[in-house]
């Protein structure tokens, strides 16, 4: 992966949000951390885009850079015709009502001292949306929509709820201002499998009910596949592969995607693959990422081209795009000379 390019982006008028050439760098005492490098993405209205990768791949940083938390070092984030990276203060804040986030840890993302009704209504109150009574009715409506009984839940505080219920409250808080886009950053990874299924189903229901567009960030490929219309795989700050989940999962084009998929334990005792070669080595330091393709240090197919040239996004002809010099699926426009080598 470790690629760049914008070939995978659709027409600007189709996208709700369009990120181009996004870079995020953090200066630290031991050098600059290259968290996100040259990432371009577009999110179409009404779709769910899954962003997957291991910890440290820059998926959360990308999600936060969209919210300008903090703003990216370089690149543009265009939402509704406006470049968010150029907005400041009041203008940026007012646009954030349309972009909401849900975080990983449902318990620590809620203020323990406030009542649920205050937590959920805060966005409405800040933006003076509706009268007091209208706000109360709206809070009841969203609490009901996330599967909580408003009469019981309103007056309680977060510690009186389980982790799954707290995540429902976080979701209620995110949808109450009627956003266009919700960024879910690992929303189910802190939950038990049985609760995880409840929350995933709830997110799908709310998406239809409120006409939401969702960016779903997670490290669990099976979870991402379940909710996504398109999946983007990241590695060490760069995009590897973008496309429909059913295509990516059945025939991965990027060697990293293949390695990730092979590493997932399936709950089926017959799914033992004796030829499985686990991905060796460790994630390189983001302070000094490898030259060329970021994945080359762990890639079984890497050669000299991968050391020198950053691969560009190229279509594989089935709606999927891959940034690799030696992809597992032939690209339509040959990138680099040796794409047929083994």
């Amino acid at each position, binding site marked *: 992966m470790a690629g760049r390019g914008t070939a995978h982006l659709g027409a600007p008028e189709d996208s709700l949000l369009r990120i181009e050439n996004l870079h995020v760098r953090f200066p630290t005492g031991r050098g600059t951390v290259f968290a996100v490098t040259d990432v371009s993405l577009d999110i179409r209205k009404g779709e769910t885009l899954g962003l997957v990768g291991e910890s440290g791949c820059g998926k959360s940083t990308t999600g936060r850079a969209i919210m300008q938390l903090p703003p990216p070092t370089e690149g543009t984030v265009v939402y509704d015709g406006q470049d968010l990276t150029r907005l400041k203060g009041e203008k940026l804040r007012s646009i954030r009502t349309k972009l909401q986030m849900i975080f990983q840890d449902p318990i620590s993302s809620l203020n323990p001292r406030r009542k649920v009704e205050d937590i959920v209504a805060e966005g409405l109150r800040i933006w003076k949306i509706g009268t007091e009574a209208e706000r109360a009715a709206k809070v009841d409506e969203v609490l009901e929509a996330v599967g909580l009984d408003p009469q019981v839940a309103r007056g309680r505080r977060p510690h009186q709820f389980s982790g799954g219920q707290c995540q429902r409250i976080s979701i209620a808080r995110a949808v109450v201002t009627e956003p266009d886009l919700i960024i879910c950053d690992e929303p189910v990874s802190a939950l038990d499998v049985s609760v995880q299924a*409840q929350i995933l189903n709830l997110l799908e229901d709310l998406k239809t009910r409120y006409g939401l567009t969702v960016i779903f960030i997670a490290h669990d490929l099976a979870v991402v*596949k379940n909710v996504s219309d398109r999946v983007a795989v990241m590695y060490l700050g760069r995009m590897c592969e973008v496309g429909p989940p059913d295509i990516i999962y059945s025939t991965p084009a990027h060697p990293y995607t293949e390695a990730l998929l092979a590493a997932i334990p399936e709950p089926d005792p017959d799914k033992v693959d004796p030829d499985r070669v686990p991905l060796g080595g460790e994630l390189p330091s983001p302070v000094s990422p490898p030259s060329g393709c970021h994945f080359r240090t762990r890639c079984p197919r890497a050669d000299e081209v991968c050391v020198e040239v950053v691969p560009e996004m190229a279509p594989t002809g089935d709606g999927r795009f891959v940034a690799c010099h030696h992809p597992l699926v032939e690209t339509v426009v040959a990138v680099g000379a040796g794409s047929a080598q083994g």
Partner: protein
Amino acid sequence: MTAVDTEPATPGTDAEHLLVVDDLSTSFATGQGPLRAVEHVSLDLGRGRTLGIVGESGSGKSVLARSIMGLLPKYASRTGSVRFEGQEMIGASASDLRTLWGARMAMVFQDPMTALNPVLRIGRQITESINEHLDYSKTQQRETAVALLRSVGIPEPERRLRQYPHELSGGMRQRVVIAISLACGPALLFADEPTTALDVTVQAQILDLLEAQQRERNMAVVLVTHDLGVVATRADEIAVMYGGRIVEQAPTQVLFREMRHPYTEALLKSIPRLDLPSHTRLEAIAGRPPDLLDPPSGCRFTPRCPYAQDKCHAEEPPLEDDGTGHLYRCWFPVGITSKQTTVDSVVTEANVRQGDDDQAVPAKVPPAPPVDGPPPAAPAGEDT
């Protein structure tokens, strides 16, 4: 390699039954009365075998592992019997247990960040148990530590010995924790969620490593996890726990093909699978695990069970063997009084959402879980 790999001679009488747990119950004294975290658990584990213990948080799986080892706080009490290599563990003196811990049975904990002492060098932490249990010279200890680090796949072991835990990545730290647990060549290893804190690619590396070490040392492993995927291809036998009890126990193949308990079925159906098409509607388990301070009457899964009938509320089913070594605790088992679910049927009968359907109408929203006060307190000692 060094002497770490050689097993001390043990009496042959217990070769088949390395660990025999009989009717083990553990309860914690709390302000609201006794919390029965584990009840009536019986297990039998042979040398070199792998037992998977699966369940949600609060099901008692970690407490069970700690109860067997005897790593419990003072306010916990145990009844029943735990025989390890023919020796009774319950009621054994602390000094007797100390000769076993680390030497004959060891534990790998979930979080490699907190399992290591941050102010001691790696080398010192590995040689600690060797120093305690084996009569080795300083040089032998060091050589053993280097060999151990190499065997768990850590490059440049000599240099690592001088490093502190914070200098290693999470995956490397978990390898060090495994090296420590293997140091004295234990006959039984408990792995309590050993890969939950790690990325999938690292998880695969660590599980492969555990398996290789297990084969090499003919070591029995108890693998505690919430992830059915982790045990599916690695355990010989699986015990599913719910509300402090084993609800189903069977050889792995049998469990996935002929599951009998509705909870096992529900767990399997709620997992997102790679081989399911995207936008499959998952079958969530409604409600939540029982409050162990005030458990439901009858079968503990009744409030969440789709097949529950009057008998289930009134009377708790016993854990019974169907004659083939498949144990389950249910009055109306799946596949006998209802249709058999298997690991394959979950995939073939998937309910995929259509792009234009309106499954979001309120009627289809899964029933709201009861908002009924604080969640059940996690049993002490869980998730540490």
